[in-house]
């Protein structure tokens, strides 16, 4: 059990070393000749115009909020699913209640046009 998580730790370190190692080697090999025009922001050949870091469309925040709700509820579904065959009738009733909560949430978001992309 602990061995598995130790492996994940070692694996994370090695996985992180792939881009770091690769980019370091590329840094040694590649030419470095920056120029004023070369380092300009790309925008179809024209000078970039106006502010780039603008305020996000509010729609993205709403999707993020709905996502958080659903993702957390799904995480709670996993232990229930694992133990389903051992719980019997209780699990079935529980499932109806839980999915009803999810569906009510989804319907509410749907009815209030939170899911409309405008």
């Amino acid at each position: 059990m602990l061995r598995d998580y130790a492996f994940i730790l070692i694996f994370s370190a090695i996985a992180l070393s792939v881009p770091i190692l690769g980019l370091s080697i590329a840094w040694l090999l590649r030419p470095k000749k920056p120029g004023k025009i070369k380092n300009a922001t790309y925008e179809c050949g024209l000078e970039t115009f106006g502010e780039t870091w603008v305020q996000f469309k509010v729609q993205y925040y709403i999707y993020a909020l709905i996502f958080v709700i659903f993702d957390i509820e799904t995480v709670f579904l996993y232990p229930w699913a694992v133990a389903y065959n051992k719980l019997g009738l209780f699990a079935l009733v529980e499932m109806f209640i839980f999915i009803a909560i999810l569906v009510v949430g989804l319907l509410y978001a749907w009815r209030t046009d939170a899911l409309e992309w405008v």
Partner: protein
Amino acid sequence: MQFLDNLFLNISQVIRNLVGGFLPDWGVEVVMMTVAAAVLVVIAVVTMMFLTWMERKVVGRIQDRLGPNRVGPFGLMQPIADMVKMFIKEDITPREANRWVYNLGPIVVVPPAILALAVIPFGRGLSGADLSIGWLYLAAVASTSVIGIFMAGWGSRNKYALLGAMRAAAQIVSYEIPQVLSVVGVILIAGSLSMQRIVEAQNVWFVFLQPVAFIIFLIASVAEIERSPFDLPEAESEIIAGYHTEYSGLKFGMFFLAEYISTFAVSAIGATMFLGGWRGPVLPGWIWFLAKTYLLVFVVLWLRGTLPRIRVDQLMNFAWKVLVPLALANLLVAGLIAAIINPAETPGFWTFIGFLLGNLLLIAAVVMVGVLRAPEMEASEAAVVGAKGALAGQ
């Protein structure tokens, strides 16, 4: 065959005996884990190189071209030529960019893709770590990939990059919900989150017990890894290349590394969860596993060669108004049938019939809803097109 089946386990035993001679027990464990991790990382990089070749070859054939055929036999050396090019290409950091975020983006985006390989069972007893929470780990790791993408898009300080990053964030979080919901049915039947246990539970492949879940999983996974027809975050024709517009050389290569490893990873997860993983007659398990995984990889490439890119409002509507309700309905059906026939005790055949009937009912219900709502959908689509036309006319 027995020998081939246990090939990798035997090799690991040989290494274990070799180091066991002059290291204490915990030292042997650390060496073994490091070797296994390094092998997995090498597999990831080689897979990525092979997939770039395979994609160009397959899409080339679909488009009636030959694909790469100059460098080496069948163009197989093409990925190596590309790699050399990426290593020696000049790197450009835009003046306006936030240097830290811009340079960290490609570094953050790679590890989540590679980390997914840790729990995938390549064969019987052949996985880096057989976590008891295997699938939960995969979902958690996969959802962190959006951070690197967003760092890249934000740090570039480029309008196309920022648009691409915003689209990517919205898309990845939206399609994660149907993806994680569709797997609940599988976990319910298998009674475990561990990938090895899920494979062992598949006396009947879960694709036959949960066909609707498999389709939802496939669609949501293709959207999660931003491949066509869901490649809006990197749509070349509208936002140039999305979040990696400003990147060049190996930094650009890092995004491709992540994308191709993710493609392999979700195909491997699909093969493990729904197609019986390493189980199969005669041939060694790891050959079965690779065959099934590459079948799914081929399907993903095939989708790219066949379907046009969809619109952003269609993308979000499809996730929340079609896939999420469908995944919830599928979960309901799976729960009801599992309550009537306990899949752990019923023989495979009757489990199969029960779940098949349930899924057929579900598909019939979906078709009915589709037919009933068709006029309404057409009206709303006409409204969208009309509004676009009015805007264009201004």
